[in-house]
């Protein structure tokens, strides 16, 4: 078969089968297990079919373009090493499926279980066959995720949920770390292809990023292989169904870490950093795991810690700078898979048949379950490293390596053989405890179920595995030799050293160490036996070193405390701090950039400062400051002060010879202030002083701080403006307009020419907007009802009323009629004068300061004055011409009509025409077509301003009537004939 098909089937088939199994009905236990078993066997066959190629040192390789833009393709690659692991995964997978068929209860949704299991098998195969680093990381995460689902299979129990969560947290985190490491590694090499990476050993080790990549990748491997200090998730994962433990937590998943370390061994190992990280982690894990295992009361817990310890042993071997150690590591990986898997299955059988896994409650099971007892005995002996079993051989290799290791520093070198012996002795102790505690002693009593032998087929996988243990143990070279050789050569290539697989190497130091460790183990067990039987509360000495508690505490700290703190610092729901932060950030960013880049004053020398103007500006600044300070407490004062600021700006414009700007500014300032005041009348009253909830000093401090921020922001703005304005400006638009205003627009007032001619189209758009805004204001305020506390008469009127009532000579309501009598007369006299002024401004606008906008504002001001002093009704009764919507419409039509008229002369839209007309009295007057446009602007501005004014002013009329809620809708016409009372 072509490589591609074999490899694709190996990875793809389990996934397809997983989907099929997932779709089976919940009770279809047999169908699902048959399917899973068949798939596992087919995969095993596929692996075997590749033997021919890999045994000759060949590599199966298939590449599928996937995301070519990223250089990401699916690369499947099987060399001897991957082949061995693939065989392990599929072979043990087949056995586990058979076992699970009998282990799982018919009540459980078994198809789901097999679905997860098959998917896991696919992911794991994909992991070992990955020829691309990113793809490897992807499958890595997938195995973590599926292991989460499998551990949490019985999700109705809290233990399963917690265990699943913990396992996922640790391994997925490690997986992401691996992902980052892989990215860095790929960056170093320049390719993510495994073949390329494996050929770039020197480049990697010499690269400055080597340490970064190493730490990230090792983190990934250590978390996955449950190495110290990440080991604690594995015992909690024992809440999974036992087939899962047998498969994932002894043979496959936890081996992914050591698989990766071995895979990258040729290119990353050999440095001190590697030895320290990998070796040290392995050493500590091996000892701690074995020590804790002794004191476990749960069968599976004991096996879990034993697994941790053995994985530590393998990791330690990988951390040594020796090719032989690597071979020993691979060999022990296989051996451990065989005996640990069978032990897990045996534990599962015991649990299944007796109903408990507590070693203290179990005893004497040798009687009712003799076959199981013998199988477990052999497997446990292999775990303890008894001669003639597979564990012994790899342990001897380990001892030999421990003795000859060239560890980076001497203390570690000296301690290594001792640690090896100690761990070996511990492993004898817990193996003994397992066997002796469970199968020997007094006959079992008081168990949840009556123990008996399991179904024959349930025991069958255990038998196969135990048989393997014995075969390998007796005839290592003949059975496992060739396969181990293939794997070793695939990793090491030509660097593979000579090694011999034999039971008997003669009497040497390793053998002696074995004997000592065995004797020590037996002795320790005999001493501890009594106390262990009674049950100890965790392992002595390190009882309080509860990694799980540390984990939980770390999670809580990280996830709640830190998160809360961070949110408190970096987040708030209040608007003011948010505004403050944005301002500060902007100041810091702007000032920082300016400071770093060294912005200084430009080349132009600023004009000397006129003391009078400076004084004026001091007044203006004081007004601005006062407005800001009072904005919260006294809106009226703030508004008036703002008017002062506007006035200073206005004078400044005049000072610097910009009369047209000054004019516009002045009129706009007046109108906006008046409208603001009118609006203020209807806002609810604000507090007059800061709230009493906090000490005054705090409030003051806060305001002072805000003042400082505002000053800083203002200062920075001023600095920037200064810096910009002291430079020769680049070729800006102003020159363009200045040069052409008269030639092409026929006017000398450039601003006006720009507005009505050059950018006439823009102005047209703008006046449309002004009109729409006015209409919207009116429409919105039509439904507006003032707040209750602002409906009552103003304080001044109330005082006057009281005074009137006290004096019987005065009629009620006289106070309104007599209100501001002198100003009232004056404003009436002023009205025509202002209209003439407006006309003047309008006509001269094209050449001299003025224009339609200013003129419109002046008329609006004139009318507003009448409103203010004369009152709404009085004014509207007399000015029946006031139909603002009509004014707005007329203005728009005039302006747009001027533009369209150009078409009539065959010119583009908005082309203007100009000449001068001699009018009687006035003399020579510019008569550009733009003037008509300007009149349109004028009319519109008057209409729009008045409409807004009316909308506001009528609140007072309506407010007076609003005591009952049955108000007639305000009419579209602003005329309010039926109003009573007065006052604007």
């Amino acid at each position, binding site marked *: 078969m072509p490589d591609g098909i074999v490899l694709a089937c190996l990875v793809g088939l389990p996934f397809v089968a997983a989907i099929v199994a997932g779709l089976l009905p919940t009770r279809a236990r047999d169908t699902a297990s048959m399917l899973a078993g068949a798939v596992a066997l087919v995969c095993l066959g596929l692996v075997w079919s590749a033997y021919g190629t890999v045994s000759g040192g060949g590599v199966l390789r298939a590449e599928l373009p996937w*995301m070519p*833009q*990223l250089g*990401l393709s699916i690369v499947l690659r099987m060399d001897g090493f991957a082949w061995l692991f693939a065989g392990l995964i599929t072979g043990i997978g087949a056995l586990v499926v058979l076992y699970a068929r009998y282990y799982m209860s018919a009540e459980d949704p078994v198809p789901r279980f097999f679905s997860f299991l098959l998917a896991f098998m696919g992911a794991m195969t994909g992991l070992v066959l990955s020829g691309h680093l*990113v793809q490897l990381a*992807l499958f890595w*995460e*997938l195995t973590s*995720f599926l292991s989460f689902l499998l551990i*949490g299979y019985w*999700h109705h129990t809290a233990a399963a*949920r917690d265990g699943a*969560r913990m396992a996922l947290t640790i391994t*997925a*985190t490690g997986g*992401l*770390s691996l*992902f*980052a490491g892989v*990215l*860095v590694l*790929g*960056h170093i090499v320049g390719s993510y292809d495994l073949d390329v990476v494996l050929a770039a050993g020197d480049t990697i080790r010499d690269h400055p*990023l080597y340490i*970064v990549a190493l730490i*990230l990748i090792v983190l990934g491997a250590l978390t996955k292989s449950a190495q110290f200090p990440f080991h604690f998730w594995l015992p909690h994962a024992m809440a999974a169904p036992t087939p899962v433990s047998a498969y994932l937590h002894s043979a496959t998943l936890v081996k992914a870490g050591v698989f990766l370390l071995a895979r990258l061994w040729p290119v990353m190992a050999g440095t001190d950093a590697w030895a320290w990280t990998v070796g040290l982690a392995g050493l500590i894990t091996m000892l701690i795991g074995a020590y804790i295992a002794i004191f476990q009361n749960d069968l599976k817990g004991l096996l879990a810690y034993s697994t941790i310890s053995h994985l530590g042993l393998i990791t330690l071997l990988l951390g040594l700078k020796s090719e032989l150690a690597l071979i020993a590591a691979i060999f022990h990986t296989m051996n451990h898979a065989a005996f640990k898997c069978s032990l897990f299955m045996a534990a599962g059988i015991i649990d299944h048949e007796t109903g408990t896994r507590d070693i203290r409650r179990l005893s004497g099971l040798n009687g009712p379950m003799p076959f199981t007892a013998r199988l477990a005995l052999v497997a446990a002996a292999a775990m303890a490293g008894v001669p003639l079993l597979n564990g012994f051989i790899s342990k001897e290799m380990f001892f030999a390596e421990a003795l000859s290791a060239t560890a980076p520093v001497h203390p570690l070198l000296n301690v290594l053989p001792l640690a090896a012996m100690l761990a070996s002795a511990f492993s004898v102790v817990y193996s003994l405890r397992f066997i002796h505690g469970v199968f020997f002693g007094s006959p079992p009593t008081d168990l949840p179920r009556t123990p008996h032998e399991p179904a024959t087929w349930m025991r069958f996988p255990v038998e196969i595995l135990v048989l393997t243990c014995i075969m390998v143990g007796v005839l290592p070279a003949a059975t496992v030799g060739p396969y181990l050789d293939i794997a070793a050569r695939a990793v090491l290539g030509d660097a593979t050293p000579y090694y011999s697989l034999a039971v008997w190497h003669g009497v040497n130091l390793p053998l002696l160490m074995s004997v000592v460790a065995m004797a020590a183990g037996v002795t320790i067990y005999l001493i501890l036996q009594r106390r262990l039987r009674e049950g100890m509360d965790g392992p002595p000495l390190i009882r309080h070193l509860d990694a799980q508690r540390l984990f939980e505490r770390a999670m809580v700290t*990280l*996830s*709640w405390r*830190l*998160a*809360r703190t*961070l*949110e408190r610092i*970096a*987040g708030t*729901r209040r*608007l003011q*701090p*948010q*505004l403050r*932060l*944005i*301002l500060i*950030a*902007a100041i810091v*960013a*702007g000032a*920082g*950039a*300016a400071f770093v*880049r060294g*912005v200084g004053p430009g080349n132009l020398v600023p004009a000397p400062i006129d003391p009078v103007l400076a004084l004026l500006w001091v007044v203006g600044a004081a007004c601005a400051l006062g407005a800001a300070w009072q904005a919260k407490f006294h809106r009226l004062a703030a508004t008036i002060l703002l008017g002062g600021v506007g006035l200073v700006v206005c004078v400044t414009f005049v000072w610097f010879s910009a009369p047209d700007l000054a004019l516009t500014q002045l009129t706009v300032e007046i109108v906006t202030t008046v409208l603001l005041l009118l609006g203020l009348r209807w806002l609810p009253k604000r507090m007059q002083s800061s709230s009493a909830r906090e000490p005054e000093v705090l409030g003051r401090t806060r305001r002072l701080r805000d003042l400082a921020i505002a000053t800083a922001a203002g200062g920075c703005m001023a600095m*920037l403006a200064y*810096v*910009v304005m002291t*430079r020769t*400006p*680049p*070729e800006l638009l102003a020159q363009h307009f200045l040069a052409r205003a008269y030639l092409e627009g026929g006017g000398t007032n450039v601003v006006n020419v720009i507005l009505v001619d050059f950018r006439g189209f823009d102005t047209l758009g703008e006046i449309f907007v002004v009109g729409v805004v006015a209409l919207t204001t009116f429409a919105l305020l039509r439904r507006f009802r003032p707040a209750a506390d602002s409906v009552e008469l103003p304080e001044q009127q109330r005082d006057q009323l009281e005074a009137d009532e006290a004096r019987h000579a005065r009629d009620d309501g006289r106070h309104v009629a007599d209100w501001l009598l002198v100003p009232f007369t004056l404003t009436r006299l002023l009205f025509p004068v202002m209209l003439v002024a407006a006309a003047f401004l309008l006509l001269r606008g094209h050449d001299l300061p003025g224009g339609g906008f200013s003129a419109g504002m002046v008329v609006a001001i004139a009318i507003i004055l009448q409103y203010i002093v004369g009152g709404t009704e009085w004014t509207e009764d007399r000015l029946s011409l006031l139909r603002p919507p009509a004014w707005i419409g007329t203005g728009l039509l005039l302006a747009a009509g001027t533009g369209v008229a150009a078409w009539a002369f065959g010119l583009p839209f908005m082309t203007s025409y100009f000449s001068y007309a001699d009018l009687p009295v006035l003399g020579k007057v510019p008569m550009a077509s733009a003037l008509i446009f300007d009149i349109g602007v004028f009319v519109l501005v008057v209409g729009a301003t008045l409409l807004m004014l009316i909308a506001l002013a009528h609140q007072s009329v309506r407010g007076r009537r609003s005591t009952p809620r049955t108000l007639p809708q305000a009419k579209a016409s602003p005329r309010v004939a039926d109003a009573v009372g007065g006052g604007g």
Partner: protein
Amino acid sequence: MTATMNWTIAAPELVLACAAMAILMVGVFARRDAWTMVSMLSFGALLGTAVLVIAGGQGPAVAFSGLFVVDGFAVFAKVLILLAAGLGLLLALDWHQREGIARFEYPIIVLLATLGMMMMVSANDLMSLYVGLELSSLALYIAASFARDDLRSTEAGLKYFMLGALASGMLLYGASLTYGYAGTTRFAGIAEALGTAPASAGLVVGLCFIAAGLAFKVSAVPFHMWTPDVYEGAPTPVTAFFSIAPKVAAIALFLRVMTGPFAPVIAQWQQIIILISAASMLVGAFAAIGQTNVKRLMAYSSIGHVGYALIGLAAGDEAGIRAVLVYMAIYVVMNAGAFGCIVAMRKGGKATERIEDLAGLGSTAPMMALAMAVFMFSMAGIPPLAGFFGKLYVFVAAVQAGLWPLAILGVLASVVSAFYYLRIVKVMYFDAGDVALDARPASISFVVAATGAATVLFAALPAPLLGAAAMAARSLVGG
């Protein structure tokens, strides 16, 4: 600079603008409740615009004397924005009716916001940039306070407006500084001015302010604070819309501005982007953990996602931009789906937004729980779901550009963020719930199913998106 209108290439925008106004008239003059009709017409408008965008070709061409540009990048972003707007509107269909805020103005606001966003991504000048930005922002302010009788919604709108106005002001200030120094607002002109001499300091300060304004719009740290409040306060479908369409537009605009006019000073802005990207990822990861309100959680999540997307911008090269585009496309899909599930969270006729209200969803609504789990896993970046590839792309781009510390930080941040995404999964499947959610309307099921399928199947068929993103990125920087 040719003084030519060339308005045909802006046909999609013109059509959308006219359609929005026409539909507004339909809504105003309709006799009966116009919600359904206006919504359907709006879908039609979005669809028609999308057809025009795609049929209009990849340019590159400029219109309105160079104010407006259409290139592959703009087309990609516009299609994404239109898709996001459509999804957002679809989610609102039922919700607004049930909440009694099914006023016909909403679809029109969405259309106008979309129009603004399309102008943003096609901006070729600081002026048109600002106009587009403001058009969309103003529409969004209103959308946030659309449930105007709801205190939280009005507060959200007001806050958004206040802060948004401040940010706009900063952007405008930066733009005026830039204009003052470069003498032009045209992107090409600014690039020229920056490219000729050593970059003048004033321009760099201007860049700072523009970046700050844009960072606000994408809600990157430290301009993120409005996000949780506005997301929580706004009606849920509006939040859904906020979290997808404006994000795409703002990120696209960010890309265009940084890699266009400011390309010559990459060394300056790269530092800014790295800083805000890292801060956004961290804040997004940590601050979300403590949340109990699912909308606030999604707000922080979106801050984090912006951080990831900005990694690609920090890389600043073609690969980086491609990565950002892929990331945003995937983000739109999965976020729309997640919000679809959140919109469907109603118990006894009332909307709920606490995370614990999802308890027991695994048994009461298995399909929805499955979909939500897919979205959460995808956002956490767990393979083989789409979210993983989005992250993969930006990380690879960052590592290739030598920004490996940022990539590693990103990976670490995604570890932390996985924590709270998985918490939702845990609540759905492992916690016992009391009351089942109300039956969900077909529109939401459709959104959730479609986006869920896209999230799952992306890995199988990545080529179209990747190809389109590659073309778009090339049109932006490849010349």
